[in-house]
């Protein structure tokens, strides 16, 4: 059995075994609320057309090691969000980090997600969000021994950052008031769902970053892979 086929076989096996457990866990841990007042569609009942190829770029991880973004957008189903740690916008970066934390927590209870999902938080504030600062910021993730891979990365340089932000269509501006209570940078929240081959399959904003929808999308891509493996 080839490495790819073997990987897909593992996904199918694990996904099938864990689907019931995950569904129950999702309902308990991700309740419907007034912001997302609907039942999400069932995974696999819809499709996610490719939007474009996820851009590459040079980054630093939280240990200061140079890393290519491409290495974080291939090989697993990736949920990638652009953040900065000084953000205090209520439905901005703190909210996105909270959603990522929920997904990370759920993945600890689901082997398919542990093995096949990756979370990536990319800072667009390299002057402040140094590798050392990101390491401190994400300490609680490293303390957690279970769950899927969750990386915190920052830009190597302003030039590299511009290229990455442009590639993903992430708008960022400095606020005219650097002491603005919401933080010194103005941005819209963008989170990307990227398939194993590095193609962007969905884009979320604060209005659509419902963890139940993200989870349904990740599972839809896993089911898509199992269908392809049977063909």
């Amino acid at each position, binding site marked *: 059995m080839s490495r790819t086929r073997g990987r897909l076989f593992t996904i199918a096996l694990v996904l099938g075994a864990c689907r019931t457990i995950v569904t129950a866990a999702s309902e308990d*841990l*991700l*309740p419907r*609320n*007034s*912001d*997302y*007042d*609907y039942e*999400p*569609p069932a995974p696999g*009942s*819809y499709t996610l*057309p*490719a*939007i*474009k190829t996820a851009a590459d770029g040079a980054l630093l991880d939280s240990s200061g090691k140079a890393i290519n973004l491409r290495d974080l957008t291939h090989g697993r189903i990736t949920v990638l969000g652009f953040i900065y*740690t000084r953000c*205090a*916008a*209520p*439905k*901005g*970066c*703190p*909210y996105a*980090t*909270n959603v990522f*934390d*929920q997904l990370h*927590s*759920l993945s600890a209870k689901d082997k398919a997600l542990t093995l096949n999902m990756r979370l990536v938080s990319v800072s667009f504030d390299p002057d402040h969000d140094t590798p050392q600062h990101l390491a401190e*910021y994400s300490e*609680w993730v490293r303390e*957690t021994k279970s769950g899927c891979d969750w990386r915190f990365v920052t830009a190597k340089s302003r030039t590299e950052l*511009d290229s990455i*932000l*442009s590639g993903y*269509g992430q*708008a*960022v*501006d*400095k*606020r*005219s*008031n*650097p002491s*603005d*209570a*919401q933080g010194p*940078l*103005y941005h*819209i929240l*963008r989170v*990307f769902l990227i398939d194993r081959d590095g193609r962007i399959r969905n*884009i979320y*904003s604060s*209005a*659509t970053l419902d963890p139940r*929808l993200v989870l349904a999308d990740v599972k839809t891509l896993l089911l898509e892979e199992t269908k392809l493996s049977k063909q």
Partner: protein
Amino acid sequence: MNPSNIKTSINTHVRVSKIPKAVFAGALAVTLSCSLGTTLADETCSSPYLARIEGQEEFVYVWTLGVEGLGDGSDKLVTVDVKPDSPTYGKVINSVSVEGRNEAHHGGFTDDRRQLWLAGLDTSRVFIFDVYTDPSKPRYVKTIDNFEKTTGGAIGPHGAYALPGRMLIPCLSNAKDKGGRTALVEFSNDGNYIATHWLPTKEDAHGAADAKIADGYGYDARVLPRKNALLTSSFTGWNNYMTEFSKVTADPEAMKHFGQTMVMWDFHARQPKKVLQVPGAPLEIRWAWGASHNYAFTATALTSKLWLVYMDDKGEWQAKDVAPISNVKGGVLPVDISLSADDKTLFVCSFMDGKCRVFDVSDPHRPKQIYEKQIGRQVNMVSESWDGKRVYFTSSLLARWDKQGADNEQFLRGYAWNGKELTPRFDLDFTALKLGRPHHMLFGAKNMGSGPRLTALNNPPQ
């Protein structure tokens, strides 16, 4: 901004206590202060996914149909200064022509408000402008000019509606018979094609309930994110909207080809769930903004009625007509509508008599007309500011449907609204200015919380 959002997250979600507490403490403090401070503003009809203007709109962008023999004869994006203290208040400060006449109709900003997409109903071209680098001088970037081929046969792009990272383009027609059967089309903000979703018909229901009444027609498409609900309305195909209005109305066969339905979709799955019978060509859709207001208004052009699409006590979407628009025999052809940000007031333009009627819709099931004003000899679009104090009107419906002779007034008129009456503020004669037929209006501003530009425009000129 809803202070309950972050509280809900903290209270109900797992393991949140391990996230740095400062992150949530800061967010909570900002949430509470924002409810007292910053004013976000915009046109009330814009996409809920759109970045908001802070304060007041500074420019009104007008997508204008070219008229043969008038000026350069081409469609153009006209920018009007509406800064109250500006020496050029109420004046045209910029105009950018595009190639030829395309039956310019509607448009929309990308969700980051960096681009303005403008659609042509006849040629199916979509023109993309940069409104970020200098909002007072929109800059042409590129054209999507292979729409029919790319989308698999959809034509007549009606407008452009911001979704996260992408644009939703509801169409009016199809290349095969140029009738009303049509689709919703998605492009990325880069202008790359993503998907085509054909509207349900009784033969091809795509799983929708009540598909026996489905006609497959399209017009507007708007989302209520909180309910994962996408609602579409229906007008008519290229054969009718590109034919003289008098010929269409005199042809009983042509009159059979107008939309009679609206469709409720599962937005995330892009799947039609239920077809609603709304006879008489339901046009613009205006979802209420209130946190518990699960309803939208539309007006039917051919039957002159206000309709309400609402969620009933059982959680089912229903549609019913809730008020007549005038008692004029034969109707007044209601066109654009605008719902105030507090969901209490609905402005309704009617093309045939050139009037704007204002309804108290505090009880959405029982609208009451409270005011009417003659805007011109014909009127089509109405755009209202978020604070409800400014209302703008334009005159053109379609090149071949506009009135003739002296009745063919072409204008942009700005008014102040004090809750009781409209007071004129400025009047631009687009014929005298040799601009053309003004149609869709969109609000622009430099003040979106941004200081120095940190990143370049995401989609540089091709």
